[in-house]
């Protein structure tokens, strides 16, 4: 049953407009446009169970990352530590409101909203249910991804460490590791929600319902 989540049928490539036929994909297989190479679909064994587990773990890691010290430094005998949310609040304190807002949105809000959407949607689709009110949020999920910058922030943390290593002693807090785990799990959670699988299953639930 899992292998038939994406049904064979006509499909159009959204990047080059070519019409083609997509075959039924077995788990682990992917379909690309024959002309431009665009990745049309990836098939997973139990995609929604997979997405749910990764999204739940990612959300827990995000909460851990927000609760504990992220990094701390010691220089000339004085130490200072920061939390994830302080990267936002200090910018706002110095009047850089817009930057503070962008960091909050790209690093915490967008990923958190996407994870919540994935949780609700994967749970509902796995139980073969789809409430009409979920249609718009499901659409947003696929458009929000361009603005989730968790892995970019993770690299930003590493760059900061290198910059600071020369002038102070830097200690990595629990949240640092939690954030790295969160960024990996987040990418796995979203990639499990293959859009063709999601919309094909929604199509089928609707047809069987009426």
């Amino acid at each position: 049953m899992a292998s038939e989540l994406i049904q064979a049928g006509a499909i159009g490539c959204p990047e080059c407009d070519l019409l083609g036929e997509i075959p039924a994909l077995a788990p682990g297989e992917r379909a690309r446009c024959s002309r431009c190479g665009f990745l049309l679909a990836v098939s997973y064994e139990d995609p929604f169970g997979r997405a749910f587990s990764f999204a739940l773990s990612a959300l827990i890691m995000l909460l851990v990352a927000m609760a504990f010290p992220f990094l701390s430094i010691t220089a000339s005998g004085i130490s200072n530590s920061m939390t994830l949310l302080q990267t936002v609040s200090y910018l706002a304190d110095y009047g850089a409101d817009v930057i503070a807002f962008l960091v909050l949105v790209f690093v915490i809000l967008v990923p958190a909203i996407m994870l919540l959407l994935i949780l609700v949607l994967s749970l509902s689709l796995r139980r073969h249910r789809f409430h009409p009110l979920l249609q718009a949020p499901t659409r947003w999920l696929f458009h929000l991804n361009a603005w989730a910058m968790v892995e970019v922030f993770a690299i930003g943390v590493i760059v900061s460490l290198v910059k600071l290593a020369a002038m102070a002693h830097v200690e990595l807090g629990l949240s640092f590791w939690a954030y790295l785990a969160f960024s990996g799990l987040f990418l796995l959670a979203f990639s499990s929600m293959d859009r063709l699988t999601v919309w094909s299953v929604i199509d089928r639930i609707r047809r069987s319902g009426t």
Partner: protein
Amino acid sequence: MTTARAAGLAVCHTCLALLGSEEHVCHRCGSRLHERIPDSLQRTMALLIAAAVLYVPANVFPIMTTDQLGRTEESTIIGGVILLWNLGSYPVALVILVASVLVPIGKILTVAALCWTIGRNTGVPARQRTTLYRITEFVGKWSMVDIFVVSILVALIQITGIIVIRPGGAALAFAAVVVLTMVAAQSFDPRLIWDERRDEAGQGGRS
């Protein structure tokens, strides 16, 4: 090989459903449906010009200010790269140089060049131009790395009286460049690259 347009169809950009090209809303996901993104080239070029203008203050003004023992030091993006290089952190210096200086301007030039090739017979294969487009779309958000570094340093380096780091004026301009180039890449419709191919093939056949 037939295209959706030639068959009187349109592909939904959110859920990949095939619909009649006269439809306005996708039946499956409810997205607004366009056969091609409306005014794609004009929108993209307008956003690129705005990004190019802001690229100047983003590099001229300081991205952060360091107050150390009463001494104030301002550092620009390039200044940060030079500092890292002098510290011997060559890989990180290169990451920042590429992500913050080369990628934004490279993106602006690449997407502008892609817009320019639409409707002109440049001889650059469509597949290669699509690859270029995908690279610019993929690297877009990586330019934010410098903004995140500033936000981390500002939060961490707050030892009043000894050393304090504050965000600088270039940060806003720089963030705007990144966001504008990302929106520009999204407004560019890559299907335009492939639309002209029929003409190319026709001319190729005649010669």
